[in-house]
């Protein structure tokens, strides 16, 4: 049995890793920054070094040298470019996961492989598949993907097993807003509903800040035409101004020699008050309010019946967002579980449940749901017209896992082909196929022989939605060797095992260029020189060198750290 369990929150803006051991969870700190919060940034330094997390901050906004918010690209065919090389979003995410793995291994002094990773409640199926692939590329075994708000609630639940209350998780992260309602009863976390806006997050609040800074700067007569991507240049400043306004009434942004005025370079010096910023983000707050209202309606809950509102995600630091929550519920949101770390905590709890570190007899149990409805498009007769209708297979907020089997028929006896597309229905109200959201997960059956009986062939459809939130849909014509299989199969088709292995090698290669392994290079060179000079006297050094090299080859962070320490000690002893 595992001694500890690891959970990872792979976020849009920041990522975190937590461990569950000895009946409690804790966040693990990046050894270099001593912070639990690892910005989800990947960049390459001028020297060609890989930088992940905080170290990447200074380089990430140089076009072609860094990647931000890659999570928004997960599951798409978009690629990003890093120093002239093209990467899939999976590979960039794998680098962030690799960093989290490094953080965990250094902190724990043990190698880490089995983890639970969180995903937004409304993450599309392809994005979940891509996250699964990213874990594999990073050398991790994803025990489970779970919904972020559920994870955050678990972090609360595991500490409050005796409590019986309704709670709401208000998860406002870098990329998405999710409002989840749950009921805690005798150690069981019963998730009731989840509703969100996948296009509303901290990034949008940064964008508004950039708008405001630029408007104020341009109002002074300064121009920024010489900057090809002025918004990108301001991104980091906007983020920090936004953070400043969470605790102060006013933020100052100053960037030396940023604009030009009358042919001369001028400094950007802008002051922004909290009121100004709140006016700027008013429409975003309205959207958040709407989400909250809809979520409570779909959970059939009155605000007064809610015992607790857990604030989760970086965007909940914005005072106006907190006010919005207080207004809606008549009581302030709770930050008793760290808003930045709650999700990672909960992921480690889920891992502990799977790995039996938490007893199923006495510990926390979670009954989770599928937040969005899933269905297919079928042709149907509506008032004498053939119309493409949405056919639900899974309703929003249904308990998972789910398995259904349905009977349909083809449209005519001589139909030769059939196509099924998986559709999403976030609100549960879709009637027409066009009301639903396309997923581009499409399966086809071709070369269907005509049915000699003159009746259309029957068609069976079996649909399942597993605990990872992964979809599988099979359809077949009974009696014929004709079928399709989509969904989880799409995970495999998205990246083949071979592609994943190649990506994995590539990530290993890049990883070796990171300062985390480079830091040993000069040490190794010095050790090798001493072994050449001192011969037998340097035997402890040569032993440590062998150990360190093999640890580096293996990529085992904790062994590297240990062997590196041994080598440094041996050199110190000899020279001392």
């Amino acid at each position, binding site marked *: 049995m595992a001694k500890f369990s690891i959970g990872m929150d792979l976020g849009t803006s920041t990522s975190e890793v937590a461990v569950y051991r000895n009946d409690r969870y804790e966040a693990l700190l990046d050894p270099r920054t001593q912070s639990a919060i690892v910005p989800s940034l990947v960049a390459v330094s001028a020297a060609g070094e890989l930088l992940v997390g905080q170290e990447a901050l200074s380089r990430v906004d140089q076009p072609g040298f860094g990647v931000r918010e890659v999570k928004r690209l997960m599951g798409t065919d978009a690629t990003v470019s890093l120093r002239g090389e093209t990467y899939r979003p999976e590979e960039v995410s794998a680098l962030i996961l690799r960093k989290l793995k490094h953080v965990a291994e250094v902190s724990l002094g043990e190698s880490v492989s089995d983890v639970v990773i969180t995903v937004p409640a409304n993450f599309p199926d392809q994005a979940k598949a891509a996250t699964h692939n990213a874990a594999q590329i990073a050398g991790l075994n994803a025990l489970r993907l779970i919904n972020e708000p559920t994870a955050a609630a678990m972090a609360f639940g595991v500490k409050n097993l005796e409590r019986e209350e309704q709670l709401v998780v208000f998860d406002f992260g870098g990329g998405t807003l999710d409002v989840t309602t749950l009921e805690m*009863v*005798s*150690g*069981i976390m*019963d998730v009731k509903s989840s509703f969100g806006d996948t296009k509303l997050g901290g990034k949008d609040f940064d964008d508004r800040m950039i708008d405001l800074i630029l408007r104020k700067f341009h109002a002074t007569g300064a121009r920024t035409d010489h900057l090809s991507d002025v918004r990108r240049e301001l991104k980091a400043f906007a983020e920090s101004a936004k953070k400043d306004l969470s605790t102060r009434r006013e933020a100052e942004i100053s960037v030396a020699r940023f604009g030009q005025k009358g042919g001369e370079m001028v400094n950007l010096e802008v002051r922004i008050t909290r009121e100004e910023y709140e006016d700027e983000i008013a429409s975003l707050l309205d959207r958040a309010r709407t989400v909250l209202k809809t979520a409570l309606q779909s959970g059939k809950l009155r605000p007064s019946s809610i015992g607790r509102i857990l604030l989760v995600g970086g965007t909940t630091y914005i005072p106006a967002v907190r006010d919005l929550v207080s207004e809606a519920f008549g009581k302030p949101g709770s930050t008793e579980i760290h808003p930045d770390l709650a999700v990672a905590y909960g992921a480690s709890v889920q891992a502990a*449940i*799977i790995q039996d570190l938490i007893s*199923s*007899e006495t510990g926390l*149990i*979670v*009954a*989770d749901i599928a937040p969005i409805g899933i269905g297919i498009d079928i042709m149907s007769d*509506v*008032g*004498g*017209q*053939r*119309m493409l209708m949405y056919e639900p297979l899974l309703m929003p907020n*249904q*308990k*998972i*896992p*789910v*398995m259904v089997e349905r009977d349909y028929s083809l449209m005519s006896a001589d139909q030769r082909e059939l196509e099924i597309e998986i559709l999403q229905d976030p609100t549960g109200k879709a*009637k*027409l196929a066009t009301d639903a959201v396309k997923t581009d997960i499409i399966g086809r059956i071709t070369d269907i022989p005509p049915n000699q009986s003159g009746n259309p062939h029957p068609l069976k459809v079996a649909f399942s939605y597993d*605990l990872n939130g992964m979809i599988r849909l099979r359809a077949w014509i009974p009696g014929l060797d004709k079928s399709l299989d989509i969904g989880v199969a799409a995970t495999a088709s998205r990246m083949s095992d071979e592609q994943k292995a190649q990506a994995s090698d590539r990530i290993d290669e890049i990883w070796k260029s990171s300062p985390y392994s480079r830091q040993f290079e000069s040490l190794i060179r010095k050790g090798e020189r001493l072994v050449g000079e001192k011969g037998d006297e340097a035997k402890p050094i040569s032993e440590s060198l062998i150990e360190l090299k093999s640890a580096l080859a293996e990529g085992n962070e904790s062994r590297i750290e240990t062997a590196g320490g041994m080598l440094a000690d041996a050199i110190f002893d000899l020279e001392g």
Partner: protein
Amino acid sequence: MAASLYEMLGVTPDASPAEIKRAYYNLIRKHPPEKEPERYRLINEAWSVLSNEESRRSYDETSLYGDEVEALMDAARRAEEEENWATAVQKLKMALALTPTADYILNRLALVYAYDNRFPEAVKSLEKLTTRVPTVPVYWSNLGEIFLRQADWQSENGQEKEKTPSLEKGRAAFETAYRLEPYNQKHLLGVSRCYKAEKNYPQAIAYARRAITADGEVDYSDFDTLFEIAFLHVLTDDWDGLQKVVGEINSVTPSDPEIRGYVASRFARLASELFGAGGYSDAARIGIHALTFQDASARAELEKMVTFYRYVAGANEEMGAFSGDQRLPVPLRYFAYLSYMKAVDEPLEDHDDEFQEAWTNFLRGDGDHRLALLILRMEYPHLYWLQDNVYDKLAEQLKLDLRQGPDPMGDGFRPLNMAEDSAPQRTITKPPVAKPPVARPVTGPTLRESRATLPNNLTRPPNQGLALPFAGGVLGFFMGAVFATPLGGAGVVITGIIGAWIGVSLGKWLRRIVGG
């Protein structure tokens, strides 16, 4: 099977909601998703039904009385097939007593009431249903249908339907169904049908038009609706509108000759119904449009029919002037009148004697037969055509060449794809113009042929005449009972759009003939 969901949760069917909830949470702990996903899934399925008061009640009803209800529904279905409405109502009521929340049974009951013309009960049932579950479009549209049916029934039973408020309610019901299902054209058509029943044709057209685009596209599947619009334009005498709709129908109709043949037959059938109702020029216009869709192979028969309609329509126009034209001897006018009446298929009885007598009287009478024939041919070409074989024969005897007369087909009607210019032809505005040479069939189709050769699948209105030999003539006549009713009466009852005019002028005319 009956209690399986309760068994799955380990509770009895009379368990309280709190007990069920406790059992559910206990079971989840015992069979957590991590350890027993399949068992966990089944527990959740049971929970999702039993945790909701409504779904639990309906599950209880079904599992307790499922078999009985099924048997009752079967019995009700059989009774409906035999149109034994009282029994069907009884069976459905029994089923409802067992499962009061079964919406589909209440809906069924409402329909059976409506079949039985028990409209207040039907409306009450559906109003109850739409109050209980206001989000099911089909219940609203059924309510609308029942109001429509009720209005129909009332008008058949002597009550003016446009005065009853039920059509307004019917529209409201269809409008609600439409709001719930804005892509279903049937609901908009329902509104349109209500307006049509209220004789508010512009609104009926407007709603039918919206129905066409309800599914986002205008295609051949909209044919029935377009056709309905065409008919509504006929009802409003909007010939421009008709022409436009026919154009639309033409553009959505695929080139498949079978489909085009079907469209042609629908127009032909409508023409024939209009003709039967006395709308002769309407019949001619619609018939012309039928030709637009008929391909060459089956065209001849249809053309024959349309030609006939056009002649009768022309004859109808000529009748007013003709009946008072004192240049013509009364027996000839009477003879032509009989021919006209026979052509329009009035309920004639056996009066070939009168026919023969009229013709004989004309031949025997004084006056210039040549002039009379000439006037008839030149000024009343359509009436002439109705008996052209008889007149031609006489003209031949009198050595009279009537070939230079006006073309009775010069009435301006054109099928759509044969129009020389795109400007729609409205009504017969031009008087018949002399146009040599007359391109006329040597032997015009007899009435019987014209009538008997409607294209496939057409049902003619009744009133097929009998062919009787006409003494000395080569024509077959359909004899009717123009004079079967006492002349002092209201004359001949003719239904249809132009019936009123004919009724009045005919009455006068008949009296004068008899008086003369």
